């Protein structure tokens, strides 16, 4: 781990592309450490995060959207929202930025071995779920069924489109997609993600549900999972909050007694049910 | 002196009205001579209200401090009035807020308190330190009478009176729906002698003075938050883009902060003195505000917070405004 947890590593952008257009566009960066030696000490797991930024601008917390099974690079998918993300979006392949991490906890992939997994994502919320899917596909024998539920406002807004197609073709995972509003030539579901979830109706037996997306969506997804018979212990999500240090010192990211940066970002619904602030 | 029974009866009647949501007044503090703001939501809570020379807070700040949260779906916005107790100086904050169209006159119900002066709590506590049990302060003639621990002490009014009261031009509220006592005649005036004294100093002396004061600032922003005129929803200090003032605390940013704070109050400060009262490191903020106050009066014959019909000073002009400083 880092000697001084405030000093970031430089990473070079190997490739960068837009996932979704618009004012709040999403750009994915595929990066590798400028100093190759960092790879020797770096290890992360699905769900973990990193502080991403540019000295002189600032840094913000993002999940690492690649699985550790993808060797030689890290991925970040970043939505343009504030000053820092706007500056990051200006960068292209060949440029560099800085990251600090890995930070926070991870999805308990070890514990989930042998179970069926369903991921329920909305919009940019697919970013922390992507490493889970990738991890399971790369360790296919260790897990049961893998089901993927994902939706965004329009087909344009879908993140990781190409990968869904590839997954569908590979056939090792059921992939259910939706958009909010009817579009021509859209072959899949039309409606909100929680409704699609009811349509897909995954079985709770020996299963784990992982969800991430806008707060409204998460709320309804959690309700619907309960209806489907999922116990709170079987449901996981990731939280976000404004963060500065990323290492549990600066104080601002807590929900109740838990620091999102340190105790999270991954929480089970059973944990969050006890904390009223988690859904503020 | 305001009769406390009359005050409570009026408050009880006012808060019982259907169109009044809450009443902001004063109640005894938690120790010593302190008084604190009270937020009365129903007639049964009116019984704890007081008004004494210990009631230093300017409650007009709370009218503009309340967060405006979006109305929840299916709910109606609460349009009932807020009733507020104001002294003469505090009432000018209401006038200035309304001059700036912060809200309409019918949003508030003003309980005016003709005021004969409040104490400087720091002076009281320096004179009578370590008083825990609740004490009371009353003004009798030209003496403050302080009752505590079963004893009474009298102190000449001058010695404990807040500085702002020594220059008060408007002891009786300029705006009110109900007046809780008979009008008080002006008992003081402002000659700006303190400002003039500073103006006469050499530039080096002035800066040495302010550099020492500003370097103490810890940027708790209490002076901003307590100010009834600082009510921008999006304060320039909190903005990151563009970031006019950095959050780092050093003489440059502190000076920039104090210039901006004081300048934003140019032609708006109504001399309630709250900023200086709350400063934990005793920066004489009123000396800054008073420079503007004096200049505004001298240059533009304008006194903030005295007439709702006045256009705000810096959003208007006269063709014949002074321009002898322009090349």
């Amino acid at each position, binding site marked *: 781990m880092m000697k001084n947890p405030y000093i970031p590593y430089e990473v070079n952008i190997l490739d960068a592309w837009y996932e979704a257009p618009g004012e709040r566009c999403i750009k994915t960066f595929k990066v590798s450490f400028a100093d190759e030696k960092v790879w020797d000490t770096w290890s992360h797991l699905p769900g973990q995060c990193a502080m991403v930024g540019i000295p002189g601008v600032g840094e913000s917390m993002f999940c690492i959207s690649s699985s550790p099974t993808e060797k030689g690079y890290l991925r970040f998918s970043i939505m343009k929202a504030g000053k820092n993300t706007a500056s990051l979006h200006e960068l292209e392949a060949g440029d560099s930025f800085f990251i600090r991490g890995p930070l926070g906890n991870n999805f308990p992939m070890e514990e989930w071995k042998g179970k069926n997994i369903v991921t329920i994502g909305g919009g940019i919320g697919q970013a922390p779920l992507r490493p889970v899917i990738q991890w399971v596909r790369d360790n296919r024998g260790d897990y049961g069924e893998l089901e993927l539920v994902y939706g965004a406002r329009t087909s344009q807004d879908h993140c990781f489109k190409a990968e869904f197609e590839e997954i569908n073709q590979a056939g090792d995972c059921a992939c259910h997609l939706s958009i909010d509003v009817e579009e021509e030539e859209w072959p899949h579901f039309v409606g909100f993600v929680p409704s699609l979830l009811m349509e897909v109706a995954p079985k709770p037996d020996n299963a784990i549900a992982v969800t991430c997306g806008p707060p409204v969506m998460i709320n309804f997804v959690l309700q619907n999972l309960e209806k489907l018979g999922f116990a709170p212990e079987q449901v996981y999500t990731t939280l976000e909050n404004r963060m500065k240090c990323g290492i549990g010192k600066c104080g601002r990211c807590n929900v109740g007694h838990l620091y999102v940066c340190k105790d999270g970002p991954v929480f089970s619904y059973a944990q969050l049910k006890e904390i009223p602030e988690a859904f503020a | 002196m305001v009769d406390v029974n009359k005050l409570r009866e009026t408050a009880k009647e006012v808060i019982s009205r259907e169109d009044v949501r809450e009443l902001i007044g004063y109640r005894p503090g938690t120790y010593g001579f302190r008084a604190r703001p009270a937020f009365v939501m129903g007639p049964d809570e009116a019984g704890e209200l007081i008004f004494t020379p210990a009631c230093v807070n300017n409650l007009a700040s709370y009218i503009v401090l309340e967060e405006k949260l979006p109305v929840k779906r299916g709910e109606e916005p609460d349009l009932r009035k807020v009733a507020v107790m104001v002294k003469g100086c505090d009432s000018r904050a209401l006038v200035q807020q309304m001059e700036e169209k912060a809200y309409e006159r019918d949003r508030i119900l003003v309980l005016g308190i003709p005021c004969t002066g409040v104490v400087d709590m720091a002076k009281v506590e320096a004179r009578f330190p370590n008083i825990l049990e609740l004490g009371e302060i009353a003004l009798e003639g030209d003496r403050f009478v302080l009752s505590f621990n079963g004893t009474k002490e009298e102190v000449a009014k001058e010695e404990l009176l807040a500085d702002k009261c020594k220059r008060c031009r408007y002891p009786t509220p300029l705006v009110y729906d109900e007046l809780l006592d008979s009008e008080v005649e002006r008992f003081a005036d402002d000659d700006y002698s303190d400002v003039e004294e*500073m103006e006469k100093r050499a530039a080096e002396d002035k800066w040495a003075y302010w550099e020492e004061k500003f370097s103490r600032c810890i940027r708790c922003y209490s002076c901003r938050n307590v100010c009834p005129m600082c009510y921008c929803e999006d304060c320039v200090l909190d903005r990151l883009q563009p970031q006019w003032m950095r959050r780092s605390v050093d003489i440059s940013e502190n000076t920039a902060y104090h210039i*901006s704070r004081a300048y934003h109050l140019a032609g708006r400060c109504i001399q309630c003195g709250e900023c200086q009262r709350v400063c934990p490191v005793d920066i004489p903020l009123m000396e800054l505000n008073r420079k*503007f106050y004096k200049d505004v009066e001298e240059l533009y014959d304008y006194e903030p917070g005295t007439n709702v019909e006045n256009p705000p000073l810096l959003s208007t*002009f006269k*063709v014949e405004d002074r*321009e002898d*400083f322009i*090349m």
Partner: protein
Amino acid sequence: MAEKNEDFEPNIVAFLCNWCSYAGADLAGTSRIQYPSNVRVIRVMCSGRVNPLFVMNALQQGADGVLISGCHPGDCHYMQGNYYARRRFNLMRNFLEYLGVEPARVRMSWVSASEGAKWKEVIEEVTNGVKEVGPMDQFKRRQLNW
């Protein structure tokens, strides 16, 4: 106060309105009128656009003096902008003086599009005034703790 330095070349930031003063400065340039090169021009649409924060920020960032220049009264492209600016900067100047920042550091002028010669005079006066009081060191962002 900083030591007077004969070689001191001040940094002066000038906020010029697009319609009069900027054109006036431009005219001075095209007429090959020589004037001190200490001034860095920032063009704004109107002197009324100049926020006092701009002045404060310029002084923080290393300007030794600031000039705000607009159209003569009555000539404002937007009818009234310069009148507002006049009130604003009269107060600002007085206040900075009160803090111990010499009034020579914050100046205001009316320069019309045809006054190339006046522009030269203004710049000479501002530059000499600032030279007289020396470098701005009251609240320049210092790199003390950097």
